C-alpha cells in the first residue's frame, strides 16, 4: 500500500527539495514513525511513575481502581478500536481514489473520537463531584489509603494527556476533511491521511494500555 506512483500527472504536492513523490512519501512516513517513538517515550515517563508507585504500594492500586467504572472504560475502548478501523478505511478510500468514502470515514472517526471525549467528561465529572481530585486537592474519604491522592494524580495525568492527544487528533481530521473537500488528495498523494492515521493508531494503542493498567486491576 506504499506505492503511490500510479498517478503521477498531478505533482503540485511535490516539494522542491524532493526528487520524486516516492521519496516525499517515504520521508513523511518515516518522520511520523519516529515522532510516534518520541510519543511513546513521552507517555513512558508517566508509565514509569505508574510502575514505581505500583511496586511501592500494590494495595493502593487495588483499592483505588475500584473507583473507576470498568463498564464505561470498556465502552470507550471499543469506541477507540472502532475509530482505528474507520481511519484505516479512510486511508483505503484515499488509495482507491474514493474521495467521498474518505470524507465519510473521516467523519465517522471524528464522531467516535467525540463520543470518547464525552464519556470521559462524564467520568471526570462524577469523580470531581466526589472530591477525587489530584494531589493536594484530594478530599474523598472512600478509599482507605493515605496515598490515594497520588494514584489519582497519575490517573489524571495519564488520561488527561491522552485526552489532549484525542483532541489534537480530532483537529487534524477536521483539517483533513477540509483538504479532502478541496480535492487535494488522490491515489497519488494522500500522505497527510496516512500519517494522521498512524498517529491515530498510536492514540488508540496507548488507551489499550491505559485501560487495563488503570481500570482492570485485581
Amino acid at each position, binding site marked *: 500500500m506504499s506505492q503511490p506512483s500510479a498517478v503521477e500527472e498531478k505533482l503540485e504536492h511535490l516539494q522542491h527539495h524532493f526528487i520524486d513523490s516516492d521519496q516525499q512519501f517515504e520521508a513523511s512516513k518515516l518522520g511520523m514513525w519516529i515522532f510516534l517513538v518520541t510519543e511513546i517515550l513521552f507517555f513512558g515517563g508517566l508509565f514509569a511513575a505508574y510502575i514505581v508507585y505500583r511496586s511501592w504500594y500494590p494495595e493502593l492500586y487495588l483499592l483505588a481502581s475500584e473507583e473507576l467504572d470498568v463498564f464505561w472504560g470498556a465502552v470507550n475502548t471499543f469506541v477507540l478500536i472502532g475509530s482505528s478501523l474507520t481511519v484505516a478505511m479512510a486511508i483505503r478510500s484515499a488509495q482507491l481514489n474514493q474521495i467521498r468514502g474518505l470524507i465519510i470515514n473521516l467523519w465517522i472517526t471524528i464522531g467516535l473520537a467525540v463520543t470518547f471525549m464525552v464519556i470521559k467528561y462524564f467520568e471526570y465529572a462524577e469523580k470531581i463531584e466526589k472530591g477525587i481530585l489530584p494531589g*493536594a486537592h484530594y478530599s474523598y474519604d472512600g478509599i482507605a489509603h493515605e496515598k490515594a491522592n*497520588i494514584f489519582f494524580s497519575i490517573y489524571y*495525568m495519564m488520561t488527561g494527556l491522552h485526552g489532549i492527544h484525542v483532541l489534537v487528533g480530532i483537529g487534524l481530521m477536521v483539517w483533513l476533511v477540509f483538504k479532502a473537500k478541496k480535492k487535494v488528495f488522490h491515489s497519488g498523494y494522500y500522505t497527510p491521511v496516512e500519517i494522521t492515521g498512524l498517529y491515530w493508531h498510536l492514540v488508540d494503542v496507548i488507551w489499550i494500555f491505559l485501560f487495563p493498567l488503570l481500570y482492570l486491576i485485581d
Partner: protein
Amino acid sequence: MATNDESKKVRKLQVRRFKPEENPEKHYLNEEKGLWAWMTTVDHKKIGLMYLGSIVFFFFVAGVLALLLRTELLTPARSFMDADMYNQVFTLHGAIMIFFFLVPSVPAVLGNFILPLQLGAKDVAFPRLNLASYYIYVIGALFTLFAIFTGGVDTGWTFYTPYSSTTSGGNIMAMTFGIFILGFSSILTGINFMVTIHKMRSPGITWNKLPLNLWGLYATSIIQILATPVLAITLLLLTMERMLSIGIFDPAIGGDPVLYQHFFWFYSHPAVYIMIVPGFGIISEVISTFSRKVIFGYWAIALSSLAIAFIGFLVWGHHMFTAGQSSLANMVFSFLTFLVGIPTGIKIFNWLATMYKGSIDLKTPMVYALVFLFLFTIGGFTGIMLGALAVDIHLHDTYYVVAHFHYVMMGGMVMAFLAGLHYWWPKMFGKMYSEFWAKITCAVIFVGFNMTFLPQFVMGAQGMPRRYFNYIDQFQSFHQFSTIGAYIMGVGFVMMAAYMIHSLVKGKPASSNPWGSRALEWQTSSPVPLHNFEHTPVIINGPYDYHKPMSEFQLGIAAKHGHHHAEEEVAVKVSKQEKE
C-alpha cells in the same frame, strides 16, 4: 544497515564534473531580500544562521552572568549582590547555557547548515517543520525571559524537588514550561535530521561514505528523540506540581523527590551527549581536512558515537551516588559509567593516529581542534575520577564537579563548536577572517579557560561545595585566581566578536574550498547557492580520500533544465542508494 554487498547493487550513471563557481553573484544570502523573507524562510542555511544569532545572544547573556558570579566570589562574604540574587544568577547561567546554548548549538546551527550540504540534498526533509522548530525555540526562550523578568528562578538548573515545588522565590512555572516547549524544538530537529540522513542522500552516499560529522549528528538525533520526551514529561509534571499540587514528587503530599532525580537525569545525562557527540563529528572533519589524510578508524569513530549514544542512556544514576539509592544501583551505574568512557578514549587515539604522517596545516579550526583534544582529555580523566564510587562520595557536589563539566562542556563542546564555526565560516558567508587575530584569540581563551577552571579542581578536592555564596577564607586566593581567568576569557570572546564582525564587513572573499577538503559541502560555491547544488552530486569516494584527485569529488548529474557548459562525460559505477 551497512552495505558490504556494494559490488552487487551497481547502477551506471552518466556523470560529469561540476566545478563550483567562484564568488557567485547570486547566493542564498542575497537571492531573497527583506526581513520578512528571512523570518519566513524554509531554507536550512538561513534557519541555521537565525539559530546562530540566537545562541550567540544567549551565550553572551549567560557569559555575562558567569562574570557576575565570578566577581561576587572575589570575597568570601558579600561583594556586591546578596545571596538570593547570587542563587538566581547561577541558576540562570546554568539553565541558559545548557538549554539555550549548548543543546541547540551544534545540531541546530552547524547541523542545519551543513547536513543537507554534506548529503548533496537541496534541504532537510521537512523544511517547514525546521522553521517551526526555530520558532518553538524562540517561544521557549520568551517564556524563560518572561520568567527572568517576573522574579527569576533560584532552584539551580536541575530544579530538584521538593525545593523547586515548594520555594516561593521566583517564577519557576514559566521557566520550566519554557524549557518544556524548548524540548519540542530539539525533538523535531532530531526527527528532521534522522529522516534526512535516511532518505535524502545523493546517489553514492552509502553508510560507509557518510561523513563522520553526519554520524555524530545521527547519534545525536537518536538521543534527542529518545531522551528529550522524558525531560518534557518530567518538566510537565513539575509544572503541574506547582500549578495543581499533584504531589508525585513532593513528599509533603505523599510523593517522592528521588523519583524526580531519576526522571531528570534520565534525560539530562544523555543530554550531555547531545551536547558533545556532534562535537566529535566536527573534530573528525577538521582533523582529517587539516592533516589532509584519510581518517584513521572510520568505523571505530562512527560506531563509538552510536555506542556512546546507547550506553549513555544507562548511566544516569551516577549523578545520584549520594542521593540514597541502593548500593547495588550505585555499583551498576558506576560500572556502566566506566564502559562509556572506553569509546570516548578510542576516538581520541583515532584522531591522534589521523595526524600521524599527515600534512598538518595549523589553521585556526585545527588549532581549536587540538585545544579540544587537550581540554576534553582532562575532562574525560576527571570524569573517570568521579565515576569511582568511593572518590565520588568525597567529590560529589564540590567545585571538582564544576571544573569537570566545564572542561567537558566548554573545553570540549564549545571548543568543537568554535572549530566548526571557523571551519565552515567561509562557506557560510563567503568571507575569510583574520588568521592572525583568530589565533591570538584562541590563545587568550585557552589561557583564560585554564586559569578559571584548574584552581577549581583543587578547591573541589579540598572540599569546597558548589553553589556557595559565602565560603571559608582558605579558598579566597583560588577563587580570585579563577575570577581573573574568567575575565581573560571574557576578553577573548569580545575579541572574537570583533574579528568576526570585521570579517563580515571587510573580510577577504573566500574561495569555494579554502582548506582543500574533499568533503561534499566544499564542492559548491561560497557562499552556497540558494538550492545548494545546481546539479545532483554523485559520490564515488569517501569524504576523506585525500589520495584521490579532486576531480573525482565534483561529479554529478545535470538538473533537467540545467547547465550548458558541457565537460567530458564519464561513466562511473555507483552503488544503489539504499532505501531503509
